[in-house]
């Protein structure tokens, strides 16, 4: 019995042995095969990669590839609000006036214009055509503007047309659309009547909400205007010929554009990537897949190591801490606001905490790039040189405590956006005010839309907020804190401020008008309406072969209208 048993075991072991060898052979073959297969794939992929890599600039076809921050929701200029729509529309459409390469206001569809106290006249050029060959006429502007103020359109930017007579009343439904103070005297002449004197109207018409829309084409799209490449008529330097939603766009040179000698030198611009991921964009740029990208401070050592030519631009916007001045908030107390003002220093925030080389420490609501009467506004009206003074801040805090009748300050609510910079600044201020004043702040982090909603409802004591310019005039910031402006989220209300803003809006003498802005700036500091944090800028890199690419503070954030390829500077 035991003998047979051992024999069985022996054969068993023999079987296992041979099976093991067999298995090992199979495994060896499988691994070798897999390795060969992967190698093959790698070769194929390498080939494919070499044909696509470095195609940011195609010298032969005179085309470039770019990345968009996000996909435009739609391209209806009358209703567009976001930066990406602005970028696309600024290349494929043109308004009455536009900006040249050095950001100076130049004629667009209008060849000349005249602004009076009660209105304006625009004379349109004869050689401005829509992409279907029909001339752009004054009627197209009349139709477009009436559409913007029509409450049914629900354009969020309707307010920018309020200088036009009856626009505000029409938009709030009090008057019929026909009463809007604009009419086409002929195909070539556009007459505008003002609600109040608007000396900066020329700067307004360069904004995309004022772009023309042709009525017969609009009606033929049956409500899908701007939803697709063929649902839009173009009159800009480029034509949008292809729009694959969620992935790519193709802009090609507009052959019938009137100003093609100065604008639109590239045959094709492809927006092959839609990404907000700045690291992904950096890698795309590194691989030569896109022509430009902006850089955040942690990426700068890499950029320096790669020896890239780094450029800078201001994006025009100003960021500040905005107080809630509503009656149920303790931030309505001026001494408390003064205490907070004295306990901080925007230099430290920018130079030591944010560390962005293109940011400027905030000194005023009016950023450094704005022009006053003849030169920089900040030079003509220097903002108060703020000095941090913790002792004085504590005195004001004590005064505030007595005035408010509090034993102890309750925790304050600090509303912040969810961007890295916003979070960083919020955490910095939280600890700064705790250390210097002993005030506790709770940080309420919200996504952009939710933050705007909470600001609208006034659910904050302090909010980290900002404002970007819509047009190239001081007033784009100047009327922010008027009692009637809905963007005045803290509901700051001062009759003195209101009276200065009224003057700034309607005064025709540039000197008196700028003086009013100077007073607004003084009042903003003295009443501590806001605490300026920083003026935002960008460090960016561009492929050295692409010339005359611009990043702008007013208008599209990236502008390829004037860009051309210089293959010699490779």
């Amino acid at each position, binding site marked *: 019995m035991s003998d047979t048993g051992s024999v069985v075991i022996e054969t068993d072991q023999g079987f296992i042995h041979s099976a093991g060898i067999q298995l090992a052979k199979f495994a060896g073959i499988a691994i070798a095969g897999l390795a060969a297969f992967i190698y093959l794939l790698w070769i194929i992929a390498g080939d494919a990669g070499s044909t696509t890599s470095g195609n940011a600039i195609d010298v032969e076809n005179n085309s470039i590839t770019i990345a968009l921050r996000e996909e435009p929701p739609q391209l209806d200029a009358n209703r567009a609000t976001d930066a990406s729509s602005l970028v696309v529309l600024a290349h494929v459409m043109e308004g009455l006036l536009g900006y040249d*390469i*050095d950001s100076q206001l130049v004629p667009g569809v209008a060849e000349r214009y005249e602004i009076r106290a009660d209105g304006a006249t625009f004379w349109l050029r004869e050689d401005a055509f829509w992409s279907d060959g029909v001339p752009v006429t004054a009627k197209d502007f009349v139709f477009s503007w009436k559409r913007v103020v029509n409450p049914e359109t629900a354009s969020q930017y309707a307010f920018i047309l309020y200088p036009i007579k009856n626009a505000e009343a029409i938009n709030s439904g009090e008057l019929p659309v026909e009463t809007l103070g604009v009419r086409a005297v002929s195909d070539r002449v556009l007459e505008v009547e003002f609600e109040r004197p608007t000396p900066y109207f020329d700067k307004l018409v360069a904004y995309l909400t004022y772009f023309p829309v042709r009525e017969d084409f609009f009606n033929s799209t049956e409500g899908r205007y701007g939803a697709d490449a063929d649902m839009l008529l173009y009159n800009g330097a480029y034509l949008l010929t292809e729009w694959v939603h969620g992935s790519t766009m193709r802009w090609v040179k507009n052959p019938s554009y009137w100003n093609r000698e100065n604008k639109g030198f590239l045959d094709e611009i492809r927006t092959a990537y839609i990404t907000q991921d700045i690291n992904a964009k950096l890698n795309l740029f590194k691989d030569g897949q896109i022509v430009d990208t902006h850089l955040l*401070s*942690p990426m*700068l*050592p*890499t*950029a*320096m*190591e790669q*020896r*890239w*030519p*780094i*450029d*800078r631009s201001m994006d025009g916007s100003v960021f500040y801490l905005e107080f809630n001045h509503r009656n149920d908030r303790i931030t309505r107390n001026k001494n408390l606001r003064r205490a907070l003002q004295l306990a901080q220093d925007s*230099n*430290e925030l*920018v*130079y*030591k*905490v944010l*560390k962005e*080389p*293109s940011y400027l420490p905030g000194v005023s609501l009016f950023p450094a790039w704005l022009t006053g009467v003849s030169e920089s506004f900040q030079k003509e009206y220097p903002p108060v*040189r703020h000095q941090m003074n913790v002792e004085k801040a504590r005195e004001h805090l004590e005064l505030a405590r007595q005035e408010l009748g509090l034993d102890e300050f309750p*925790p304050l*609510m*600090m509303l912040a956006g*969810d961007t*890295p910079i916003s*979070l*960083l600044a*919020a*955490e*910095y201020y*939280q*600890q*700064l005010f*705790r*250390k210097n004043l002993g005030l506790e*702040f*709770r*940080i*309420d*982090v*919200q996504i952009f839309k939710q933050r705007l909603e909470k600001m609208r409802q006034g659910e904050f004591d302090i909010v980290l907020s900002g404002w970007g310019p819509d047009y190239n005039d001081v007033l784009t910031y100047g009327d922010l804190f008027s009692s009637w402006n809905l963007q005045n989220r803290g509901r700051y209300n001062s009759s003195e401020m209101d009276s200065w803003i009224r003057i700034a809006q309607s005064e025709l003498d540039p000197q008196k008008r700028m003086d009013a802005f100077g007073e607004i700036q003084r009042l903003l500091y003295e009443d501590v309406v806001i605490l300026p944090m920083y003026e935002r800028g960008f*460090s960016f890199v561009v492929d050295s072969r692409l010339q005359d690419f611009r990043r702008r503070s007013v208008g599209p954030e990236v502008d390829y209208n004037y860009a051309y390829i210089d293959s010699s500077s490779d």
Partner: protein
Amino acid sequence: MSELSASSFEPIEAHQQTQVISRPSLSYWQDAWIRLKANKRALVSLYIVIGLLLFTAAGPLVWQIDPAIQDIDQISQPPGTDRGATIVADYEPWFGTPGLPGSGLRLAESANSQAVRMQWDALPGANGHRVYRNLFPVGSELAYGIPLAEYLNNDTLYFEDRLDLQPGRFYYSVVALDARGQITDQYQSLTVELERVTTLQEALERGLIETGDSVQIGDEIKLAWHPLGTDYLGRDLLARLMAGARVSLFIGIGAPFLFVLFGVVYGSAAGFMGGRADQLMMRFADFVVALPFLLFMILFKIAFGIGPGESGVFPMLVAMVVLLWPATARLVRGQILQIREQGYISASQLLGANTSYLIMRHMIPNTLGVVLVTVTFAIPSAIFTEAFLSFIGMGVAPPTPSWGSMSNEGIKTMLTTPHELFFPALFISFTVLAFNLLGDGLRDALDARMRNVE
């Protein structure tokens, strides 16, 4: 035949044992402890866990640094950075020094980490200037580095750099701009060595010197010591790790312990009772599984009246306990149903064992293996859940740290300052590994079926 004497009738002395028991009689727990001790990996893990608990509980008593304090002079410093700093006068704004001797791009004052003040003469043909800073020499490809400032006219011929000045060498360049504000090939450069400085007021404020100390301008002092470096706001990483451990371990151990305990009780009750009660209880468990975690987390947060900016750690704990127990309950119920039918249960019932004896002696030890596996998997997942919820703003509120939120912050600067990610990630990994290995060892030690396997 021998003679019988009186002595023959004396009782025999009680002497040596007739039978030797080969093993000492050990209780269940003693035996488990012996076997755990024999398991090296488990033992080391146990020490690590004890060490972590000490780190959390006693650490802040030893290292008494407020984790919220921001040392703005030492932002994102890796461990072991030189801390020497020279005292200089307080910062005063500077607008160029008229009539500064020398030519070309030159320093107006000796450069230090407070400010680098430079001045230059208008470059030939320049309509303005742009100032750059680089970590590397400009070189032949004219890589100037980071543009720091731009002047579109020749009125301003000075620049003061205060941006993130760290000790080391910088290469400054000033480049001429053409009429359109574009850079040209005209440039001058300057190499600057920076030393770290601080002011008396800053030193006093940060507690580096006492009010009575006779420290003067020019003296060298040491900046605050941060053994593990600092984070992106200059906060001490060691103090933050200790504070973060409190949150992470509270959630990471507290939540799994509570929901596993509840799951065990619930599951064993269901399994033991069986029948209709079992059916009802398990269908209820299925219902709980279907509830969305995130939604309940938000609901609890509101129900507890926790506003934005306040710590949501407690509702997180409640949400985890309320929603995550069914997995354990199901496992334990299955085990109990199985064990209930085993022969040794019937045997001990025949021998007169009562219910509590059965549960304590047979049921629980036999399910412990499964339960411990659940716990060891639940701890890391709870730590990660906490990290995720803190990231989306549902967990800890700044400035309170947790390991998860620290990792999320550290990953943003992973390439430039890896230590901000490395340390919290290291602690998470060690904790998770230690609990896993310890759980593994405990399962082997506590498993009644493995008792006789040597």
